[in-house]
């Protein structure tokens, strides 16, 4: 399928820090400004909005740290929550010490998380980075299950099921900040998030960071240019652990409680989804994924019991059709947005959207009705979806849903060719402008 080839084009290299140093500083400055203004934007200037932004910030740091492993070094980990959670536990204990008189401001608590993340990253990493690839993924799974089980066996440190709590307002006040309000918590999280992102971005540009990319691309060749790939993996692992622990520390401040769920397989899986959906081939991809998934988790779960299923379908769609993630899609479109063919592309999208919406409606109907019947049978057969009432005991809603799904799919399929053709045109035009020959051949 031709669309596939356009979508599967080589992902933009990780390496390009667009522009020179001045451009870079401007970008970070702009980000800082946006972060400071965000909580005052109408719609977000409520406690709920601040809480949402805080969660997004934590998730963003966590997802970026995960991508140091996956997108940067090619290491797939199913147990990254270990470092997040252990960092969180360290931070919450540190907070308790502060509650009991330790004269350190709350704003520095994430450092305890980072330190714990680094420590355990070094400790476990020294052993688990001996292998790479699939075996490394399995080891990470095993270590994750181990640590999760251990949290229940050592209630003194981990508080068992209830977890460990602390109070973020009982601490020495720095600049009059007592962290009673969610807004102040947001600013602490946002500041640390910005610092973490800048550090991780800078890390990529160091010799070690360059070699991480190299062993991601071709670990064998890296050995032949003088590098022990195991050592490189180890360093990357320690760095990833450090920033995951930092995120855990932010988590501790935000929720004032850390429990076993912070090291769980579910959390490890979530950060993986965030990073991958956002896009592992671009630096900001995981941030996009973190924001998107946090928003989905919070808002979608209010509307439907089936939101996890939708999330799963979304993830599968990304794997199959957009392996560079949302960030990859954005970059791909940015490359052709200035071409004349772009308008055709938009038109093709619009035409494809109609059958896709029909198909989607059919699917949603089926899913929602099934979920309702199986998880809430006590509510009876009649239900409401948006403004439509239906009786699931009769065959009609089911027939309608199936017809919509099938018909929509068939029609949708027919539009693929048009979209693919529009992409070919746009792609050619975008390339033709730069290479003259239009076929990308070398001189």
């Amino acid at each position, binding site marked *: 399928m031709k669309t596939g080839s356009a979508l599967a084009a080589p992902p933009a290299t990780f390496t390009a820090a667009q522009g020179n140093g001045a451009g870079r500083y401007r970008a970070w400055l702009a980000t800082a400004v946006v972060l400071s203004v965000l909580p005052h934007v109408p719609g977000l200037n409520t406690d709920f909005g601040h809480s949402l932004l805080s969660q997004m910030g934590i998730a963003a740091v966590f997802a970026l740290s995960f991508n140091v492993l*996956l997108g940067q070094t090619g290491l797939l980990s*199913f147990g990254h929550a270990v470092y997040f959670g252990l960092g969180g536990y360290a931070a919450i204990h540190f907070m308790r010490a502060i509650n009991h008189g330790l004269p350190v401001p709350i704003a520095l608590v994430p450092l305890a998380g980072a330190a714990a993340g680094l420590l355990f990253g070094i400790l476990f990493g020294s052993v688990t980075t001996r292998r790479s690839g699939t075996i490394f993924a399995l080891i990470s799974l095993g270590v994750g299950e181990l640590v999760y089980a251990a949290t229940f066996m050592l209630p003194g440190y981990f508080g068992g099921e209830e977890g460990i709590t602390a109070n973020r307002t009982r601490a020495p006040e720095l600049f009059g900040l007592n962290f009673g309000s969610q807004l102040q918590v947001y600013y602490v999280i946002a500041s640390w998030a910005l610092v973490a992102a800048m550090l991780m971005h800078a890390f990529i540009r160091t010799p070690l960071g360059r070699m991480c990319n190299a062993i991601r691309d071709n670990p064998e060749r890296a050995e032949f240019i003088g590098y022990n790939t195991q050592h490189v993996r180890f360093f990357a692992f320690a760095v990833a652990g450090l920033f995951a622990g930092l995120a855990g520390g932010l988590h501790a401040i935000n929720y004032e409680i850390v429990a076993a769920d912070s090291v769980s397989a579910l959390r490890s899986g979530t950060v993986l989804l965030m990073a991958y959906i956002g896009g592992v081939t671009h630096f900001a991809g995981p941030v996009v994924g973190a924001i998107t998934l946090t928003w989905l988790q919070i808002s979608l779960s209010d509307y439907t019991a089936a939101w996890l299923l939708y999330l799963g379908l979304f993830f*599968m769609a990304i*794997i199959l059709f957009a392996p560079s993630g949302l960030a990859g899609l954005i970059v791909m479109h940015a490359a052709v947005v200035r071409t004349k063919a772009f308008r055709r592309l938009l038109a093709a999208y619009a035409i494809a959207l109609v059958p896709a919406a029909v198909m989607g409606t059919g699917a949603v109907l089926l899913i929602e009705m099934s979920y309702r019947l*199986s998880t809430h049978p006590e509510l009876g057969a009649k239900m409401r979806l948006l403004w439509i009432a239906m009786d699931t005991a009769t065959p009609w809603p089911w027939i309608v849903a199936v017809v919509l799904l099938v018909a929509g799919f068939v029609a949708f399929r027919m539009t693929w060719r048009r979209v693919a053709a529009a992409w070919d045109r746009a792609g050619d035009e975008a390339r033709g402008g730069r290479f003259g020959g239009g076929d990308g051949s070398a001189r």
Partner: protein
Amino acid sequence: MLELTAVSLLNGVVYGLLLFMLTSGLTLIFSMMGVLNFAHASVFMLGAYFSFQFGRWIGFWPALVLAPLACGLIGAAIERYGLRHVHTKGHVAEILFTFGLAYLIEELVTMLWGRNAVASSVPESIDFPLFALFGTSFPAYKGLMMAISVTMFAFLFLALKRTRIGLIIQAALTHPQMAGALGHDVPGLFVLVFAVGSALAGLAGVIGGVMWLTQPTLAHFVGPIVFVVVVVGGLGSLSGALIASMFIGIVQTFAVAVDYSLLDLFRVLGIGVTRASPLYEFYAIKVATAAPIVPYLLLVLMLIVRPRGLLGTRDA
């Protein structure tokens, strides 16, 4: 003491055989295609649900045949229509695909059967005690399970070692590219292996769903242990999977019965440890409490010391 040992041993063997039923399929898939099939335990869960549903409609014995068949078809479809498109995108994409699939299957199962466990019970025809060992009765369905497991292993062994297609699969297990270069339809073989592996998982699900609760989290419960067995037993080795399954099954069953902890050991050795000691909590953990993590300790140890596993022929 002897009673405890004998009963634990028997139960351990039963558990081990169930694990083997489950992991034989995964071993084949993992070894042949290098794909870490996260969805394998999910297919096991589907087998349990199918056997419940088919059992409701047409009875246990037909379900024993139909549920694995359905799972086999699903496995074939997964490989043919899903995984095949992902092979070219690298191992990471493959793993993530099966990971997402596991996620999806869990949600689909919830969508169809709800979040609570379904009332799958031991079918009447095999709900009687087979014999009694030291006063503890050994139910017939466990005997059936053992019989099915052993038959399956024999069948697999014969099929792989004595038939032509088995020979080709063995070759593709360790040298897939070479097998393809020699002209064998490796993609077709992949579909076959995936289908057979999934059918085996489904068969295990029929029995396992009775032994354990049939609920959407069944895959989470069983999944990680299955990976442990595959890696410890060795990639590409069915015999290794059998040995590892039995070993882990027996060790874990025994561990659950052991009520001692490191504290007891220290007491015997005369080492004084008090509540004030920093790692007291750790020393006080009874082996029985730690039993769930024994497989993971084994996994980590094996991966560090001998990633090939006990009898493995391929280093992933």
